């Protein structure tokens, strides 16, 4: 005990230096975690989180009873995750391989810089770009193709629109990672393949793609943990939070944001948040265990 105390005293400088981050995690991550008990309480703003009366599983019954809202937003959340991940990965790998094969390196550098830019534009700004394309009177799409569609009123188009926006936003950034893997491939592998008589396509199939597989697996597994979370800005800002679109655009995160603004349904929302957090954590733990099996050095912990 004494020895431990002495060791700590000797490291007092380190303790002081790690204190600020420790406290910020405590206040802004750990205390809100305790707030998840809300899911089991009948929340009253006047009483606050800790003093509100316990409510058992009533909130969860409420959640399950409102089948349509809850199931729909969960289904939307998962559907968009699947679309974004699948299409995103295919495009990212395609662009990365194309960039890697390109002999005009300087041109490649410039194109790569341009492709990354969209990730730095916030969805509040992207929203205005999308509006310039889709506004019913002044929008480019309607004018260019002579259409007269009121895009912000028609839910059925939005899965496609949001997918395009998301791919535009994130693909360039995602491709950079795969490019860095490709840059690390030993050139001798290609030379050896060439000597064996492999043409360009065969080289891509048998050298390039296999070397990307570990990174693809890791990225996929790591993303599994965020299935229940969406890019809130995409679903809240880009859709202009239009109620008529909710059927196809409401995800768990945007639902919660709306509930906070309307001060409504706190019990329901708390149960949904709890569900989201717990499922998210289970998925991260599972996927990390899987990464650990396949590629230990890429595991998060």
């Amino acid at each position: 005990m004494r020895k431990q105390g002495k060791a700590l005293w000797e490291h007092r400088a380190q303790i002081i230096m790690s204190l600020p981050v420790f406290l910020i995690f405590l206040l802004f991550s750990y205390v809100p975690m305790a707030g998840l008990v809300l899911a089991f309480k009948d929340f009253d703003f006047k009483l606050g989180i800790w003093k509100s009366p316990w409510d058992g599983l009533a909130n969860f019954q409420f959640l399950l009873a409102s089948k349509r809202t809850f199931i729909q937003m969960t289904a939307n959340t998962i559907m968009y995750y699947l679309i974004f991940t699948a299409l995103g990965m295919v495009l990212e790998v395609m662009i990365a391989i194309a960039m890697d094969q390109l002999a005009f390196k300087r041109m490649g550098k410039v194109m790569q810089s341009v492709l990354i830019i969209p990730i730095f534009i916030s969805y509040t700004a992207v929203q205005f770009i999308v509006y310039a394309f889709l506004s019913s009177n002044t929008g480019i799409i309607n004018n260019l193709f002579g259409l007269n569609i009121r895009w912000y009123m028609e839910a059925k188009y939005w899965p496609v629109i949001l997918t395009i926006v998301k791919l535009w936003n994130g693909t360039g950034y995602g491709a950079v990672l795969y490019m860095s893997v490709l840059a690390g491939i030993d050139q001798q592998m290609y030379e050896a393949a060439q000597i064996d008589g492999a043409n360009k396509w065969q080289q891509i199939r048998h050298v390039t793609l296999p070397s990307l597989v570990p990174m693809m697996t890791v990225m996929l597994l790591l993303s599994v943990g965020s299935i229940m979370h969406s890019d809130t800005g995409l679903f809240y800002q880009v859709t202009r939070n239009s109620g008529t679109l909710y059927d196809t655009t409401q995800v768990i995160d945007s639902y919660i944001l709306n509930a906070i603004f309307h001060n409504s349904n706190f019990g329901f929302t708390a149960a949904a948040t709890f569900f989201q957090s717990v499922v998210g954590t289970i998925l991260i733990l599972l996927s990390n265990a899987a990464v650990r099996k396949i590629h230990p050095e890429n595991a998060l912990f």
Partner: protein
Amino acid sequence: MKQQRGIVLHHKKRHGAGQVILAVFLLIITILCALPIELIFASAFADETLLTTQGFMFFPTQLSMDGFNAVLRYGKQLFTSYGVTLLITVTGTVLGLIIMAMYANCLTMSDFPLRRFLIVWAMIPMLFSGGQLSTYIIYTSMYHLRDNLLVLILPLCVSTMNLIILRTYIQTSIPKELMDSARIDGAGEYRTFFQIVLPLMKPSLAAVGFMMATAYWNDWQNALLFITSNNKKPLQLLLINIQKSIETLLSTRNIPSSALAAMQGSIPQYSATMATVVMVIGPIMIVYPFFQKYFIKGMTIGSVKG
């Protein structure tokens, strides 16, 4: 030298057709990616009547500075918001970098008894979160941070991913012997860190700093949830308000209502909105090229090595 050039030429000749197709393919993707951004700039510089009668276009036939003029002349709120965003971005990034570097440095010291505990302490928030709702209620009803700029700075200034990047950098790129010899020379822990470790961390600080700065610059959700008064509104919240009405750009204080009505009529709505968007995303695009190489490196470290 000569021989090398010969090889390059030979290379080009052999892959001629395929390479051209590849280049064209990538060029098309790049253009598709850049066009929406070009559209913002084109609309900001387009003539307002052109936009209202013929709609948005990539290459407006009539250009005008009216949008920018209106924003610069009447947009008092824009300058206030610029100030707020700059303040939170600079304070948050500098504060975050210093305290995270200190923490990351402690995580690399194998003789530090609390090391394991602090690693776990930093990992858990990545696995588990309280979610938006309880975060909102705790920030407002427990910490009373509503309409306080601290709520825009503190929660974002620390992240597990950035800590991992910084720690990995210290472990792989700063020789332990350097720190040891500084200690032998009698430098205390603080001096060793601030005069030896921190300066050597520059590339990783640039990478993480740029990512943090864009996160601060682009953060709209905290502002939307917590900020209510005009003089604390950051740029992203201003953009959200402008979506509802361009008039929020005006600062209504000290202007007689008759004059205000006249001004509102004279604001070219579409081009002024796009001009504001240009002024919000502009700074990031100007700074980005200088940080690109660091940031790509940092991103790769972060996701490849945990």
